[in-house]
């Protein structure tokens, strides 16, 4: 794992002879966090790898234009966020199916311990997250799992803080209701 700061990585990247080396370090620095975000968004490992690779290719193409207006991680996160939404849109268009049908297909690997180590409640949490609309799912992930501030999420998604608060509030309610219903069903199968 690279111990270099973002500024040091960027300085290395701007030099022609160390560009690939710097980019390698940058990928090693951020790949796990980005992968987790993308995997939560698309659920399936192969899909997540495709989106992550596309994200890094885009970062490579655009990093020369990065002027440091935002933090580097927020800037990369924004690219990953957009790549996820594009990918999900393409999936729906390609399969000519609804959001629910795509989510169901992507959740197919959740029951396999080969792909998922969480217990029942975490599996159900991921299923509940997958029922959210794509943009709301991204907001929920950034707030709940990554604990980003609304201002940071606003920079990443391009959505106002007020709209983000509403979106997160609704997402929490939906997921809690989903998990509560699941627990009730588990304790009282007749209900």
């Amino acid at each position, binding site marked *: 794992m690279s111990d270099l700061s973002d500024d040091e990585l960027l300085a290395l990247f701007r030099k022609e002879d160390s560009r*690939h080396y710097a*980019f*390698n370090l940058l*990928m*090693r620095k951020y*790949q*796990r966090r980005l*992968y*987790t975000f993308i*995997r*939560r968004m698309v659920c399936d*490992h192969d899909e997540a*790898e495709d989106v*992550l*690779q596309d994200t*890094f*290719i885009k970062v*490579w193409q655009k990093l020369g234009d990065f002027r440091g207006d935002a933090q580097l991680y927020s800037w990369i996160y924004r690219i990953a966020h957009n790549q996820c939404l594009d990918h999900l849109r393409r999936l729906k268009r390609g399969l000519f199916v609804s959001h629910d049908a795509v989510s169901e297909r992507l959740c197919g690997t959740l029951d396999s*311990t*080969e*792909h*998922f*180590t*969480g217990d029942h*409640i*975490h*599996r159900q*949490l*991921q299923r509940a997250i997958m029922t959210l609309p794509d943009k709301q799912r991204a907001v929920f992930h950034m*707030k*709940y*799992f*990554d*604990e980003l501030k609304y201002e940071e999420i606003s920079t990443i998604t391009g959505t106002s803080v007020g709209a983000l608060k509403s979106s*997160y*509030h609704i997402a*929490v*309610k939906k*997921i*809690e209701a989903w*998990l*509560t219903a699941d*627990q009730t069903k588990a304790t009282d199968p007749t209900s």
Partner: protein
Amino acid sequence: MQNGSYHDELDEAPILRSLHREAPFVTPPRFFDELPARVQQRILEEARPRPAAIWWTHVRIPAASLLALVLVAAIAWWPRFGTVETPNAMIADMELQGIELDRLDLDAHDLMAAYGEDPDLYSEVGHGLNSDELTAYLLNEDLSLDQLIEEL
């Protein structure tokens, strides 16, 4: 990511609040060790010009010139395409399209006699018109034979 960290929004969501936030996903062995190399490989491949692109670079100017030449030739020859070759062909064409020569107060014989057999007149009739245009004209204008001859 910290277990049980506090969010105001989770006050009314006890289940969500109680869960730990570690990612429960499994990745293939050495996935994160190998991913940067795979991405770098893709970057190098995308930077390398593809054979099709190289081929296209060499042929695009001759291909564009040829296309322009074909277009110019097509425009130059366009009026000659589909013109009426003989009055007989024109009459047959009209009959095929169900045009009633009677409605025009003339029959095939009249038409032929009036202008079809006259080489000078025929060259006037055929000039710049194809059979469709001519039949449409005859149908729409509903001219008498005299008027028709005058028009032509």
